[in-house]
């Protein structure tokens, strides 16, 4: 018997003209781990909402077809009743942890179900142990990091031992380490318990390796439902924006795509195509701008918090005009603080920051910039055109009705807008984690946009694929100071954490970062006309 069954489900949000999901029919069995793939707006989140009863009970709208969860028809059972069988985890950890302490948070769903206190206490202990958060049980939730909060929210979803766990981009607000830890945790939970897991995720390379099945959505419809390797083969042919870098590398070499670094490496090795790692980088990064007047200069900048940690430790950096720089490093390394100093939002406790003009800063949440009733009120027509929002119809829309990517571009237009006059040029554009929650197409569009800007660009990010697409210089920060500064090929090819999937598959050979470069490198070792693997 399936734990989730959707039978011709069509759902339209209130006021919407088109359904968010249409004629979706699928079944998910006990213990299955299913990855939901698709671009933003493809219907992934709505499908999860239909499965946990939020659509239509919470959001309203028109629901057709039948959705059954653990034998309960969602038309007859609301989210409260379904909560006993379905655990749900959303994107933003801040808004789904509602209690003051971790223990109370884990207990809440069970208490809502009217469980006896002894049963609640036991389930809380078990969930905490399963998720490795027993040490957090009496901590105030307000003090937890994003990764810890997301684990706690997952614990609350698991405490009632549901048959089905739904996760809507659970790693999109987390740094890569916390995201990888969460995915690994899910994998273990899936193996230990018999709960089916459905996870909607953009960074497919993170979770395809251990999925049983992948369902791809486009325009609210299921367009592919297959095992991960078959899905990758389909994606490489029909939906390149959904293909993982590893999948594109193998497909480019004429091999069957494989999910995960290990499988991709094995596929290359079996065909004798896995190059030796050799020297991590052999290419010349090109002349770096060392003009007399840098666009941005940090001169022994310190940032010390009173009775707190030292965030920046004597940072000295020069960013040349037109350079495209990626700031990388673990959480707390000082990336965001450095950008805030660049934009003048913070003052160094020691040292100086100088710039050759205005420094525009786009912070993590673009919605914070939006205060107008219409897009045209937010920025000038030229600034909107620069970021690709020149469409007159778009300019009349409410800023909060835009998609996530459009909001990002609008916020960029706002900070780029030359309100200071043409003589007051923007010398540097800084962006703090701009790709969080973005699908691959939107990331590519943003990278292309950043490459077109005349100003120097500094981006704090955890996303090596994005860095490889736009940067010509990478600065690695640790404990408030730069520890490495070089070309993307030098910095990203040799490691594992700060490396693209292609680089990890190829072991850093030739400093290759992107699938196309990998195809060129490995393809060079194939005799023209010879059949691969023959």
């Amino acid at each position, binding site marked *: 018997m399936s734990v989730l069954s959707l039978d011709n489900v069509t759902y339209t949000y209130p006021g919407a003209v088109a359904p968010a999901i249409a004629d979706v029919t699928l079944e998910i069995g006990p213990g299955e781990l299913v990855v939901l793939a698709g671009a933003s707006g493809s219907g992934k989140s709505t499908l999860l909402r239909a499965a946990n009863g939020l659509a239509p009970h919470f959001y309203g709208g028109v629901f057709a077809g039948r959705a059954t969860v653990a034998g309960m028809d969602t038309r007859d059972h609301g*989210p*409260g009743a379904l909560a006993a069988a379905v655990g*749900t985890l*959303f994107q933003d950890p801040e808004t789904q942890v509602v209690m*003051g302490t971790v223990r109370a948070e884990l207990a809440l769903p069970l208490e809502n179900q009217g469980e006896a206190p002894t049963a609640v206490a036991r389930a809380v202990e078990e969930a905490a142990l399963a998720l490795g958060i027993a040490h957090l049980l009496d901590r*105030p939730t*307000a003090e937890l990091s994003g990764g810890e909060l997301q684990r706690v929210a997952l614990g609350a979803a698991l405490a009632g031992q549901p048959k089905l766990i739904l996760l809507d981009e659970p790693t999109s607000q987390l740094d890569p380490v916390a995201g990888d830890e969460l995915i690994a945790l899910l994998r273990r939970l899936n193996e230990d318990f018999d709960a089916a897991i459905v996870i909607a995720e953009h960074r497919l390379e993170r979770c395809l390796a251990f999925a049983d099945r992948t369902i791809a959505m486009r325009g609210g419809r299921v367009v592919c439902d297959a095992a991960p390797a078959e899905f990758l083969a389909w994606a490489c042919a029909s939906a390149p924006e959904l293909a993982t870098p590893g999948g594109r590398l193998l497909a480019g070499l004429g091999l069957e795509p494989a999910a995960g670094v290990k499988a991709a490496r094995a596929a290359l090795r079996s065909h004798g195509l896995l190059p030796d790692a050799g020297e991590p980088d052999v290419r010349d990064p090109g002349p770096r701008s060392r003009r007399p007047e840098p666009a941005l200069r940090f001169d022994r900048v310190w940032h010390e918090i009173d009775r707190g940690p030292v965030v920046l430790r004597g940072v000295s950096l020069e960013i040349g005009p037109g350079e495209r720089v990626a700031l990388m490093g673990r959480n707390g390394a000082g990336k965001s603080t450095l950008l805030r100093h660049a934009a003048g939002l913070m003052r160094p406790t020691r040292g100086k920051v100088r710039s050759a003009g205005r420094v525009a800063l786009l912070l993590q949440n673009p919605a914070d910039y939006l205060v107008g009733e219409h897009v045209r009120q937010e920025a000038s027509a030229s600034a909107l055109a620069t970021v690709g929002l020149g469409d007159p119809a778009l300019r009349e829309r409410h800023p909060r009705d835009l998609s996530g990517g459009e909001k990002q571009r609008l916020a960029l237009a*706002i*900070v780029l807008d030359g*309100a200071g006059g043409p003589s007051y040029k923007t010398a540097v554009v800084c962006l703090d984690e701009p790709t969080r929650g973005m699908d691959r197409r939107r990331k590519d569009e943003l990278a292309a946009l950043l490459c077109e800007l005349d100003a120097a660009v500094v981006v704090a990010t955890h996303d090596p694929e994005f860095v490889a697409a736009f940067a010509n210089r990478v600065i690695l920060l640790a404990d408030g100071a730069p520890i490495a500064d070089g070309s993307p090929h030098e910095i990203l090819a040799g490691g594992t954490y700060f490396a693209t999937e292609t680089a990890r598959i190829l072991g850093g050979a030739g400093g290759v970062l992107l699938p196309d470069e990998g195809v060129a490198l490995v393809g060079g070792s194939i005799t023209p006309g010879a059949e691969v693997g023959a």
Partner: protein
Amino acid sequence: MIYRRRASPLHAARAGVGCAYCAALALAVLLLSAPILLGALVISIAGAAVFAGVGREIRRAALFALPLGLLVMAVNMLVAQSGLTVIARLGDLPVFGQTDVTLEATVYGAVLGVRAVALILCGALYTAAVDPDEVLALFRRFSFHSALTATLATRMVPVLARDARRLAEAQRCRPGPPPSRARLMRATTAGVLDRALDVAAALEVRGYGAARRPARRGSRVRRPYSRHDLAFAASAVALVGLAIGARVAGLAPFSSDPSLYAPVRAGGAAVAVAIVLSALLPFADRRGIER
């Protein structure tokens, strides 16, 4: 300000008792108006905060409350025309008209201001020293949804404060003149509503909509009343008793109309000392409290 478990007798006491203790302090503040007794209550609240290890939190609350107290005092000074002892003639002021500042109105304004400050400090002491989740568990039997709403409000304060800081930073990044307050207010409201919708959805999938009265059967092992529970409960009873007794018996009379009358008598002084001792004695027993 958030609750954080600390090694103190007040934190060791059960939430119901902690609630009663803070409520008793607040009730005494409302019942008493003699400066000597209000002073004793402020000393008691500050002392309780220090002994509970939340002195820094209460100091922050006091920094917020003091301007409010001064404002209350200033308004009363300007508005109340009662009292015979004129200490300043401000002449014909806009809005206020002919304004004479009297000693009685000033002192009564100060009493009101101190009372407002003391009530805020009581609230801060409760927030910092009483476990809100335990309070929720306490009240859920009577009104689960209301209790959860109160807990949620407490939890959301730091989240919304972070949102506000983020929004302010983003607005500083906008070139040109800052947006009008009305536009900012609309944007802030929209952001808060977005967050409220997310929180509501999270509560729904946690079963909030179908929440049932908690089961009585199979209750966990009953938690016996500890020394700290008994000490703070006794303290709360004593504080309420002293406040009612002092008010009924008129041990510390206070009047500001038509002239100031606030004699310090032995009875009043004794009540003041008794209030401080009653409020702070439970902190003397630190046996079993980890250091």
